[in-house]
């Protein structure tokens, strides 16, 4: 599941980051503000490593 999602996101964003990494924003408040500022959809990936 994680791999599929990561691949899908890389398909959308990876080309311009050149390193194949998804530029995850790890501060949800800052990310949501960024989405509002840019008028874009935010994709929230809820995860937990137990």
């Amino acid at each position, binding site marked *: 599941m994680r791999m599929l999602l990561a691949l899908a996101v890389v398909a959308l964003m990876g080309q311009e980051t050149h390193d194949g990494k998804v530029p995850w924003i790890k501060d949800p408040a800052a990310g949501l*503000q960024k989405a509002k500022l840019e008028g874009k959809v935010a994709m929230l*990936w*809820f995860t937990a490593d137990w």
Partner: protein
Amino acid sequence: MAATGRVVPILVDCSANGQNEELKTKYKVQGFPTVVYVDPDGKQIKEMGSREGGAITKEIEGLAAKYPGKPTMWAPSRKIALEAAKKAKKPVAIYLADEKDDLIKLTAKLTKDLGDRKTKFAWVLETAKEATLKELGVESAPAVVVLNPAVDEPTKEPVAKIAIKEDDKADVLNKALDEAVKSMKK
């Protein structure tokens, strides 16, 4: 069409007890991993419908098409700003916002105050965390750090570090930015 930044990817780490509880409750998250798409105002559009790679891509593309974003002076990331600035042969300006800053109001103010400096620099907006301040050698936010994208390690050799005080008028920042451009040309 450039694909970069068509959606804003946010990792919500719920590993610690109570971590991001408010968001989990708001979007009714009951297990992990869960993916939720929200509109620019934070209203949930949908939960991820498919778990198949191609369908996920289509799903994201569909949402990105519906919310294409609006023009902004900010590059999606520092890395992208540095790449664009290198091509355009102009400096990068990192605006380090205070965590309490309202970015919408801040952008509106800067759009008004900066004049053509909006396009003379490749701007990137970052919320100043302790690690970022340390990395850039800045004491506190808000501040602007000007980088020369043509050097090997731009963040290690900043052209200027401009502290912004609450009562500073717009021309204080503008003058400092102009000085930074001049010093790069020398």
